[in-house]
């Protein structure tokens, strides 16, 4: 991994020269941090190193790490709002095609069940081939029921029915899986807004999780912006972090939109979901891949 090497180089050279800074910049770009944030970070570091007269490697590393961590604001609240009030807690999962929404719903249900919660799944993806079956298989696997509609039926009414069933059955959490849609498709984005509004006739949606794939490049920021406009995203799930991609785009997403990364996906299995930990994330960025 270039970043790891870049840092080692940066810290082992007596003098931090232009080439070293360029190497460092390169390594951040390779992690999908983006040209803008990378340039900014490098500028900040340059200033701090100069002002503080940083000479020893240990101190330099500390500063690097703390600046990266600061970008991720470890103080943000990253808890999943899954507590029942008068009505079940409702969590919607949204995002572009193929990022891992349905899988995340399955894995999150598993976590909630382990916390002794009564969970119900709503299959509001009525569009993609066998999407409801896929969700149902996840439901069966983790032992929770799935409310489905007919293929091609209105996703908002399936979501409505699921929440209704959740209210009647007095469950703790209703997880709503939605169809993948590109943020550029206004018709589909309007549909998503409607799904949320229709649910809210019965119960507030306490959590809207946007699923971003760690392999996604700079387009991730645009995705996040538009999804937030349409359904007021409350948290990010960064999936497929078990691959070679670092998911650096979430740094920009968090900073520009103030929406915290809450969970990370680490595989295709039922237990491959973990809370986001800024320190672990930064250390992974700094580590050799």
């Amino acid at each position, binding site marked *: 991994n270039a970043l790891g090497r870049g840092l080692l180089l940066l810290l082992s050279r007596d003098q931090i020269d232009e080439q070293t800074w360029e190497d460092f910049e390169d390594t951040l770009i390779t992690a999908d941090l983006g040209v803008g944030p990378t340039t900014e970070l490098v500028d900040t570091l340059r200033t701090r190193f100069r002002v503080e007269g940083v000479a020893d490697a240990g101190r330099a590393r500390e500063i690097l790490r703390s600046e990266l961590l600061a970008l991720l604001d470890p103080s943000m609240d990253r808890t999943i709002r899954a507590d029942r009030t008068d009505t079940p807690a409702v969590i919607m999962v949204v995002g*572009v095609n193929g990022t891992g929404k349905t899988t995340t719903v399955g894995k999150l249900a598993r976590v909630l069940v382990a916390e002794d919660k009564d969970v119900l799944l709503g299959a509001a993806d009525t569009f993609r081939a066998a999407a409801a079956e896929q969700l149902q298989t996840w439901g069966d696997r983790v032992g929770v029921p799935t409310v489905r509609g007919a293929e091609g039926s209105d996703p908002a009414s399936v979501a409505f029915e699921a929440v209704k069933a959740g209210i009647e059955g007095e469950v703790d959490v209703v997880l709503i899986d939605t169809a993948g849609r590109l943020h550029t498709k206004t018709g589909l984005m309007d549909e998503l807004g409607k799904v949320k509004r229709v649910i809210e006739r019965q119960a507030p949606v306490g959590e809207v999780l946007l699923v971003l794939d760690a392999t996604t*490049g700079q387009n991730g920021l645009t995705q996040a912006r538009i999804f937030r406009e349409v359904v007021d995203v409350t948290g990010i799930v960064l999936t497929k972090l078990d691959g070679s991609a670092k998911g650096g785009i979430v740094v920009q997403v968090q900073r520009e939109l103030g929406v915290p990364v809450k969970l990370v996906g680490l595989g295709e299995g039922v237990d491959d979901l973990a809370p986001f930990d800024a320190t672990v994330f930064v250390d992974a960025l700094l580590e050799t891949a």
Partner: protein
Amino acid sequence: MFDTLQDRLAATFKSLRGKGRITEADIDETAREIRRALLEADVNLAVVKDFVAAVKERARGAELHGALNPAQQIVKIVNDELVTILGGETRTIRYAKRPPTVIMLAGLQGAGKTTLAGKLAVWFKGQGHSPLLVAADLQRPNAVNQLQVVGQRAGVHVFAPEPGNASSNDDLDRPRGNPVEVAKNSITEAERRLYDVVIVDTAGRLGIDAELMQQAADIRDAVRPDEVLFVVDAMIGQDAVNTANAFAEGVGFDGVVLTKLDGDARGGAALSIARVTGKPIMFASNGEGQRDFDVFHPDRMASRILGMGDMLTLIEQA
């Protein structure tokens, strides 16, 4: 972002307008903007560096051309280089001398393989072929089911002897069936029933997953494909090169299909992958419908990556 980029490049080119010669400083300035534009389009950094170096080299050596001013010349050089890499070797499917022609799809999770299988089926059918879809993803929950629905919509037969990972299984944590066996038997099925194109859908897998990469190689050996197509999401970032290299080494591929081009991602991966693997990008997938599919157009991709609707407009502005 689109506008500012275009504006920025336009501004750079404007400052070059009217000059009789391109100076070294002009080249550097333009190169910086192009570097940034490519990085914002998610072109892999190593590829960007190579590319910018090549452009600079050509710009320096550029003969003063009567009809074009210096700015126009640089734009043209950039465009030409992009199209050359993207279009290196344009070709379409190679058919087997003796049918069936076998096409195997491979790629990361969620890239769009199963959807592409349906699109290819429709496309081949439209050309008078008789395709068979093969459900060799037994891993993702209900992948087999998904392919069956896809096949039904396309009006083609699906070879799916195993249910894979589905609710009907006794043990939900252990998928049923062996994908290599399924793939192998599909060829016999195609020969017996006279399908002349076989499209093998495989499970998504990570580049760094050695075990699943071996499984992909085993499927390949079992079906001896005429084309292995690497399916990649146009939204992918800097990791495109790692992943493409991993698939090139692990299974090997003959062509690339870029998916989800109906969004607004610039798709710099196209350039990265074409440059690093030297394999042609053959098709573009641009929607969820079965006809949202086209052969790949290098020139369109070039202006998309640079974020310019029309390179020629820019040349005129310059």
